[in-house]
């Protein structure tokens, strides 16, 4: 009897220690989020494995304008993720890669991901699809282990970013997370944007209208993408 009690007490202590440790780690990650990482000088790392989430339609167009301007020597190798239902985005990314990177374009990888919510899908059924998308996103994020995730919505990027944050918390990889709110958002953030903002998930959070930046002071405005 006494031994049992001791065992329980021991396990409770282990669980408490784990919980406290995890909490401390969470707080640390949150505090470090957004602080500049001086990769070039600090870690000597000259290139970052870059994961780009293509959100379909206008979202894809916007993010590819960023990719066009990236210095491919630093942002390398590059992986692209698009929704399973999105038939155009990966082709557009491949075309850009071939034009810009030429021979090196073959080092890029392309993935498709289940979407958490389709346009018009009800909020209730989207719980199940979100779980599926989550599982898939975690598997992808853990196998890619990017140095940086660049995304701009819509919901497609949410599970990928949560997975990226978990990589950080578990200490597997410090993933720099960058979010650019769509130019279509003039007066308020999108649902995805609001979540990222409130949860402090992003290291860099850009908006494309000055008055939106004024409403959300932890964001940055440095001009439009379109």
């Amino acid at each position, binding site marked *: 009897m006494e031994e049992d009690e001791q065992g329980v007490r021991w396990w409770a202590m282990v669980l408490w220690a784990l919980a406290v440790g995890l909490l401390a780690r969470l707080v640390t990650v949150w505090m470090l989020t957004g602080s500049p990482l001086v*990769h070039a000088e600090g870690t000597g790392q000259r290139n970052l494995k870059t994961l780009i989430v293509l959100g379909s*339609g206008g979202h894809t*167009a916007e993010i590819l304008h960023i990719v066009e301007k990236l210095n491919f020597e630093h942002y390398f190798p590059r992986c692209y993720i698009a929704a399973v239902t999105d038939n155009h985005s990966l082709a557009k990314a491949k075309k850009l890669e071939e034009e810009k990177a030429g021979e090196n374009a073959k080092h890029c990888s392309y993935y498709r991901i289940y979407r958490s919510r389709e346009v018009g899908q009800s909020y209730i059924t989207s719980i199940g699809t979100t779980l599926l998308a989550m599982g898939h996103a975690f598997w992808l994020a853990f196998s890619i282990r990017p140095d940086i995730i660049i995304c701009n919505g819509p919901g497609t990027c949410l599970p990928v970013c949560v997975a990226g944050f978990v990589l950080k918390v578990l200490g597997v990889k410090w993933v720099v997370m960058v979010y650019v709110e769509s130019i*279509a958002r*003039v007066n308020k953030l999108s649902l995805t944007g609001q979540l990222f903002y409130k949860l402090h998930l992003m*290291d860099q959070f850009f908006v494309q209208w000055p008055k939106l930046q004024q409403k959300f002071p932890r964001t940055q405005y440095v001009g*439009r993408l379109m």
Partner: protein
Amino acid sequence: MKQNRMVFVTVGSTLFDALVEAVCKRECLLTLRKLGYTSLVIQLGKGKFVPDKSAGEAEDIEIEHFPYKPNLAEYLGKADLVISHAGSGSIFETLRAQRPLVVVVNTLLMDNHQSELADELAERKYLYTASPEKLVDTLRTMKLETLVPYPSSEPSALVKTLDQFLGFAPSIRSVSDHR
């Protein structure tokens, strides 16, 4: 020979029959013809409504249509007026091609954040906005010569900020530190 002036109508990859129907109404065709337009090219998207080409013949306006093409640049380049849905992709492709644009907002969509962008751009005089019901009114009263050319964007600024954050480019602070 009469000069060909083309109106390009696009609904992107969405379903927006109300727009196509509004454009193909006799009243609208008459208005377009009166404004000097001679042909109408309609990209239908996922819509079920298929315009009747003979309706155009009656008003002396040529109607051509197709569901989807990945590259609409060819049509945008030839268009003298673009009537588009409120998707940001179509809006900015048209503005960058420097074409006069009327954006028709889909009033049936729930949580219509798209009108947010169209309204802001209309306020800055880059384009006109309308609903399917008000399209004819807008076409009648618009003054295309008062539209302001859309300024080109600068994605490099964002990339530079990112480079600085990651240490790939000297940040403003470290530059002043070196002084």
